[in-house]
């Protein structure tokens, strides 16, 4: 059984939190703790879900909270969810604002850089 993983990278202007595998209720809290530990709400945060195979509502809540924290701190948040992925499907179903969702990490970096 592969555990969901999170890797935080420092990039120009902020952080990339790259998630892997299944992000569900079993691991969401741990991932959130890890991201909060490694990032600050004063810099942009890109949550990269490109390699996430499954995202449940706990995962959605996790991402929602991260977005909330960022915007409260006046910092940008972007979610990388590739076209056609189940992740994107879930986020769209949950009504995430379109501008939060980007298809690639490069696009996310570009929107961070524009700020």
């Amino acid at each position, binding site marked *: 059984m592969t555990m969901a993983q999170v890797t935080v990278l420092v990039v120009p202007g902020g952080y990339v939190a790259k998630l892997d595998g299944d992000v569900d*209720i079993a691991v969401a809290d741990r991932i959130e703790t890890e991201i909060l530990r490694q990032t600050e709400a004063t810099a942009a945060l890109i949550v990269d879900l490109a390699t996430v195979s499954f995202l449940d509502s706990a995962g959605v*809540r996790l991402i929602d909270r991260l977005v909330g924290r960022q915007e409260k701190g006046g910092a940008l948040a972007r979610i990388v969810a590739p076209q056609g992925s189940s992740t994107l499907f879930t986020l769209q179903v949950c009504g995430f604002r379109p501008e939060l969702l980007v298809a690639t990490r490069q696009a996310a970096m570009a929107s961070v850089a524009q700020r």
Partner: protein
Amino acid sequence: MIADVPDEPDEQLTEPVDDSAEELYEHAPCGYLSTRPDGTIVKINRTLLDWLGYDRDEIVGRRTFQSLLSVGGRIYYETHYSPLLTMQGAVREIAVELIRHDGSRLPALVNSVLRVDASGAPVTIRTTVFDATSRRAYERELLAARRTAERSEERLAVLQQLVSDFTPAATSMDVSEVLVDKARRAVRAVASTLWLLAEDGSTLVRIAGGTPPHPLLLRAPRDAAMPHTQAVRRNEIVLLGSVEATRQQYPLIAELMVGAAREAVVFVPLSVGQQALGAVSFSFDQTHAIDDDDLQLLRTLGRQAGQALQRAALFEAESRLRHRAETLQLITGALAAPLDAAQVARVAVDRIAATLHFERIVFVLAGAVGPVVAAASGVSPAVLGSWRRDAGDLAPALSWPASNGAFFDLPEEHGAALPGLVDLPPEDRFGALAVLPLRSGTRSLGVLLLDRPAEHSFAAEERDFLRTVAAQCAQALERVRLHAEALERQQRAEFIAALSRRMDEAPGLRQRADRLVARLVPAIAERARVALLADRQLVTVSTSTMSHAVEAAATTRADPDDQPGEHVALALSEGTPQVAASATDEITETALPLRARGRVVGVLVLGLGRSRPDRDLLGFLTELAEAAGLALENGRLYDQERENGHLLQRGLLAGEPPRDPRVAVTSYYRPAGEDLEVGGDWYDVFPVGPDKIAVVIGDVVGRGIAAASAMGQVRSAIRALAATEPAPASLLQRLDRFVDRFEAGRMATVAYGELDLSTGRLRYSCAGHLPPLLIEPDGSKRFLWGGRSAPLAAFAGMKARTEDEVQLSPGSRLLLYTDGLVERRGRGLDLEMARLAEEAGRRSRAPQGGLLSDLAETMVDVQHRDDVCLLCVGFGVEPQFEREIAADMTRLKNLRDDFRAWLATLALSADERDALLLVCSEAAANAVEHGYRDDRIGVVSVRARVADGVVELIVRDRGSWRSPAATTDRGRGLALMKALMDGVSVERGVGTVVTMRRRLTSEAVA
């Protein structure tokens, strides 16, 4: 005498003589005079007039008594004689000198009585005068003798006092104090100056006394034409008795004497035996004349002072040596502890400040780009601050040419060489300075600057001592440098070893490059990029920042944004590390060639921060790049091989299984352990007629590309033969001949069967392969042992191929597998096969999707060293998904995997598949969370089926429902279900049953 007295009276005594009172008065053997109270002479006798050579008329009524006296007498008369007379009425035997008419003097003793009238008012003074010439001569002799005695007594006392003052003088400063202060006063000089020969014996240096108005009086060569140097040279007193006498030989001194109103100056050598250690001068004004006795006294004084100086010098030298030995021990002891250069500097400065008398101490280290002030004492914050920003001013000290240092007694002397220490605000300006380079061999580690604000003469002994201190500091620096170097070397070696290990653990190039970058950033570099040459184009494989490298595209095409700098191009062409000429966004890039098989295959570009790497760091990075290049190349080779194998295998394994509602085919392939080469297992399912499909599973001996390629050939051959051969046995016979001819796949095993979908009849043949397992819908199972023969083209095997036939009932499943599933080290094959049959039988009603992965996971662990290939043919499609999972969040993923596989057997759109998977997971999660919040042993059952184009999903638990905590935002799950499904119902009774339905799109149903 008594005998001589005559008995008879002298005849003459009877003779009449003129002895009247008048006669007696006038011619008495003493002088008489009477004066009024104010001294005016009213009467004087002849005797006195004769003695004085005056006529009576010149005196009486014209002169006063006191006017006849010498000056001293006159004063004495006024201050003593007259008051005494007034008070007591008489004075006796006053010694005076009377001035004769011719100006000569008459020593006399006088007695006076004052006559007063009845009322007590003074009337006259009567005075008798006795000639005291001989008595005065006697007195004068006595006086002279007394004066001489007194003077020599005085000298003796002065000398004794000075000698006793010299005795406790422990330092030359004590001696000089006695000389210039006490001795000066004792000899009644108005000024005094002391000079001592410097250590080298060639310079006479002023030690004490008023500031001399001329530099030569401050410091003079021993052979200078000056009086104090001459006194030292000749070890003789030099007496400049008057300005005039001085003017000829020492005009300069004469001028100074005039300026300071000096009448005479004596320069006294301070001698020990035949040598003079220095000289002391005593200046006199006009009130004091110098005689030979004075000179004698001064000569003796000079000798006593010389001895005292020598004694003090010995004492000082000894205590200095002791102090220095102790100091050195302290410093050396303190320097043993520090572990880095900055600590060495701090400790050294602290120790020196505490034990040596320096005002300012600056410890400069040789930094990578110039001097660094590592520690300082006595320097103002402003100056220290400016040095911390830029210590360039101190660079000359760091590259000091003389390795044993330099010592400057005056700021003028070091100003030219080290302008940085003089061009400071006055209060910070350096005075006497010691520049002590800290070297190890020829390597400059730093420099120690020691300063005294006032002039200071660094004696040879002190210089040696300070050099020793500096040597100790240098040793300490070298020690910590070697320590740091060894530590760094070790750390670097460990780093490279760990990096190589870590890279080797990753299977492929990309992973290895990622790991390389991850290890380097931020541990070593601010950023890192691995770029490899592919078709003469540089392709970025991994990079720490994505801003200009398009990660996804990087492996397949050259990055258009990435214009390799000149340093990158040079590193590629020259094969040597290159540092970018200029920094971009404050980072200097270093390009390191990556080599493999003796040529440069790429480049590792590191952004190392602002400063350029030193040779040391470059050496390390080169070594690192060597190791990385090798690991990357191995990764690339692995990738290539694996890629080839997998390409082959994927190409061969993929291919749409026949779409026929009468049959469900699922397959499972798992390569042995992630990083192993591809194996030779394969399966195949293809139609061989309208109602017939061929089912194949096989295993080619060996691993890697060769095996994969052989497998491909065999597989192709089977497909080709299946089209013409009527039956499995004859197909295998033909296949034997093919393999025999081409060698590819000899000893491969194959199970081949043809299933008639209309009848359910299966004809099959096994060439050395493990028997297929048939599982009936009721859970009964059996291995198909019929139709067995040897592996393909086996030399030792039976040439004849046989086949067998079996009837499949609807709902039954045929399981074909390779030996990876059942061959277990230490376990009999039969036992494992029995276990397989058992496990498969238990799952006879489980949905076919997910069955194979479940079986595989049950049978073999993840680290299994062999490929596992499974093929399942369900005759008569399974319409229903049924699962039970433990009430544990971590089991949700298993459930999803199974459900995803079951969904895969349905023809669904991606959105439908995602939606169903999501709601299934959500519902199950709810069941786990709410139904069994306090209970981990509960079970959640999930059932799904498709009927009439509608998917029905039922999730059931037997726990007691707990409302979601108000604070959580749980509930989205239910919202999701409602959003994604056409209908959702929740029934709560003993446990909770969630039933959801969704109508599939027409396309999906079709």
